[in-house]
């Protein structure tokens, strides 16, 4: 055991730290955020996922302008042609350029997928943790709302309301998100109930840390694995639900396109004109892959037991 030196004690009892500030900046104490970032960057697969997502977003938003074809401008000279120099991904039976359509669809799907996931998981985390941590009437009210939303058939509600969306994407995202967060919220609440009793939460409480801060600082990080997995699953759920809705004539409506509607349309010709199916489906797979890798990377970065050396 090191015996604390007398000088050290002196600085503690005296108003300390001020004299030591000069040497501090070189050797700052790394914060949790920084450590997590470093741990994230250390993982090849996570970085690969992030790069892939950036490329996909770039393709969808910037890459769409590389071709002279618009997603809603059919080329009446080439119907259902295979990929070539002019139509990079080929065209469909109506002469629509598949490259432009895929990119436009990707824009929608990326937006819907990521926004819904963040919204749903975020809401689940906040509501579940608040209900579990504060208990009493907060718990009662929040869980009552959750149970209520659980029994409302979300798919039908969206189907009924969708004529009023008028391709209003934020509203659509909001409704999609509203119907997939409840189960996670219940799980988060259950976990919070046990975390709340942990001594480190008590310790924080006796330090005078407020409830909200305890949730953000102690409870949610300890649920990070669950939340990241939930968020990645929610991305695919959102994209698939949107596809389903679009298939029934709700959700994203023509002339607008999403990856879901494209894949839906190409289903019948998947064997005869495979490119119609392969490109949008491939894009979707890459998108989900990227999101999964990032989610996994974040999870491992948050979890100190994964043994990533920093």
């Amino acid at each position, binding site marked *: 055991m090191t015996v604390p030196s007398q000088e050290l004690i002196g600085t503690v009892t005296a108003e*300390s730290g001020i004299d030591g500030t000069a040497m501090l900046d070189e050797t700052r104490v*790394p*914060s949790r955020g920084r450590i997590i970032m470093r741990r994230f960057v250390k993982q090849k697969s996570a970085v690969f996922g992030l790069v892939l997502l950036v490329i996909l977003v770039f393709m969808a938003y910037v890459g769409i302008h590389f071709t002279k074809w618009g997603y809603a401008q059919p080329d009446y000279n080439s119907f259902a042609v295979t990929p070539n120099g002019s139509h990079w991904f080929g065209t469909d039976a109506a002469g629509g350029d598949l490259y432009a359509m895929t990119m436009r669809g990707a824009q929608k799907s990326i937006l819907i997928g990521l926004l819904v996931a963040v919204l749903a998981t975020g809401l689940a985390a906040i509501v579940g943790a608040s209900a579990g941590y504060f208990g009493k009437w907060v718990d009662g009210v929040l869980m009552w709302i959750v149970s209520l939303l659980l029994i409302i058939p979300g798919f039908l509600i969206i189907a009924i309301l969708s004529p009023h969306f008028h391709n209003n994407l934020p509203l659509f995202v909001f409704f999609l998100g509203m119907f997939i967060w409840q189960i996670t919220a219940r799980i988060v609440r259950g976990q919070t109930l046990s975390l709340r009793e942990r001594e*480190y939460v*008590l*310790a924080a409480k*006796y330090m005078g840390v407020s409830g909200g801060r305890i949730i953000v600082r*102690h409870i949610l*990080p300890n649920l990070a694995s669950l939340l990241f997995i939930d968020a990645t699953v929610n991305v695919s759920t959102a994209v698939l639900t949107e596809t389903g809705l679009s298939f029934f004539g709700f959700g994203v409506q023509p002339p607008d396109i999403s990856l879901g509607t494209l894949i839906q349309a190409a289903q019948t010709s998947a064997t005869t004109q495979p490119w119609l199916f392969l490109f949008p489906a491939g894009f979707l797979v890459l998108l989900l892959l990227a999101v999964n890798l990032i989610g996994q990377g974040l999870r491992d970065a948050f979890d100190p037991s994964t043994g990533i050396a920093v």
Partner: protein
Amino acid sequence: MTTAAEVRTREPQPDESAILVVDDLHVTFPTLGGTKVRAVRGLSYQLRRGEALGIVGESGSGKSVSSLAMMGLLPRTTQISGSIRLDGKELIGMHDREASELRGKKISMIFQEPLSALTPVYTVGAQVVEALRVHTDLSKERAQARAVELLDLVGIPNPRERAKAFPHEFSGGMRQRVMIAMAIANDPDVLIADEQSTALDVNIHAQILEVLQTARRETGAAVIMITHDLGVVAGLADRVLVMYAGRPVELGTTDEVYYAPRMPYTMGLLGSIPRLDASGRSALVPIEGSPPSLANLPSGCPFRPRCPLAIDICAEEEPPLESVRGASHRAACHRKEEIETNGWSVGDVFPVPELGIAPVERLPREQRPVALAVEGLVKHYPLMKGVVFKRRVGTVQAVDGVDFDIREGETLGLVGESGCGKTTTLLQILELVKPQAGTIQVAGKDTNDLHNAHARKALRRDLQVVFQDPQASLDPRLPVGDVLAEPMRTHGYDRKHIDARIKELLGLVGLEAGHAGRYPQEFSGGQRQRVGIARALALEPKLVVLDEPVSALDVSIRAGVINLLMQLRAELSLSYLFVAHDLSVVRVIADRVAVMYLGRIVEIGVVDSVYASPSHPYTQALLSAIPIPDPDKERTRERIVLQGDLPSPADPPSGCRFRTRCQRFLTLTEGEKQLCIDRYPPLIPMGPDHSAACHYAEPVAVIPEQSKERKRRRST
């Protein structure tokens, strides 16, 4: 690294009377990563018929694994080599069916955790009957009668009725008794008791040791007692085997090992135990560092990194277990002859740190400011019944009128069995809210006057807490730097100030500033508790509440943390409220001690006076139940073993709450007894700053005097 094959550790000559012969036992656990965890490396010993052997070691020393190997209870993937012969029969490599024949009949084990070792869905009687009928062809009726006899033997009251009860209707101590009954059901030749002390209260523990003695006497079985506590085996064992990092490091008769240890680790262990018979506040002998990882052992002697006697050869060669003088006492140390000839004792080998005294301690107690004052504190919990319409069916009187105060620079030890209300008292103080009745004053401020959250938060700076289990009290997802920064951030320190303070704090508790970026799990238990202490000190509090801060730590680590606490108190003029069930730790660290029983303080006073002349029967019983690591004293000591368990705080006895278990009550005349039944005794002064709540209080010395030899050693 020296392989164990090169190091000869075999017993010199096989003994005819040995019932169990362990020869060069190796146990290795392969792990996924390909590294091998070598849990036991070359263990040899012999157990004679009817002998009691104590195996002592810290967690990870291989003591439990070796006995599990004996029982054939290790997972299939484990690699076991060497030989274990029970009554001439080789146990290693035996088919599981054959082993089952022996288990419970010739060799049986009393497991550590009484809560999980009984099946909850069968009655206790049925489980004892099963243990009997597996190995014998007793008829059901005969087996049942025998089960009742066994339950009676281990001290279960009304065994005939209680046999029909389910395990959840039994207290922890009672369940432990049932397990002993099951273990001795078939008159085994060898009885293994694995860490009996950990899960139980002091009193219950004393009862269990007594039962174990009875069981041994009745069955004539040889007993292996596995423990981390040298105190426990001192009075019971004939021989002691000390293990470290999977190897036996010292083996000898109890007297040899306790009075003339020849291996520095044993010496350190003996010196690091806080002793009831110590005189006043004194530093303990700390063993620096922590036990090595079994997957990655250092070359040479595994104890070398922590050994103050290490020389060059220790790094090269692992010392064999060889006899010191005579055949019976053997130690594994390169310098054992030197230790022997020079007669070195603990104090000579391990440097004992000097403890300072806080300036405020020089003032007489009355002149010092009050850090914490509790008066008439009451906490009752309503006992509710019913689902829809809840109605109150009773009151749990967790804390029922508690008074004490702590002056600046002072330590008050608050002790009692679990369920006595000490944790509730502590939580009431930490909550900083208005109590149901009574007052709590922290640093001169009454919690009744704290009307808003702001004032309460301001007061929290003066009051901090260190929890029992460092594993649970540090957020596993928060790097240590953030753990330490949390209280400061909450109380509005700026970033630069916080960074400087974190480094300072880490230095203060003996860790490196570079550790700030690591997660709690990268630290050992002792280091983690140091982080917990550093966090409590971050805001420069006046009062630190310590909730059993060392009971979750390994023995050799414990002393270091206790020393640190004492050092910090002297250097920072802290006051401690030290809550513990372990009276020996309190003896070492506290100035004053308060003993609680069923929500009330039964005895309070300065440590020296309370320990030398305990006046309340409960204090006397508590003190007499704690083992002293001194075989002579242990053997001759008179134990006061309390009957039964703590009564329910929902329905405390009338008058004096202790009278139902009181040994003094039994000696009184009927007329005298009436007073105990009618009135709760007030605290009666027994001396300067010492009072006890007993109508018939009278001091009884229950701790033997410290031996002269040891006193001399301490003073030099």
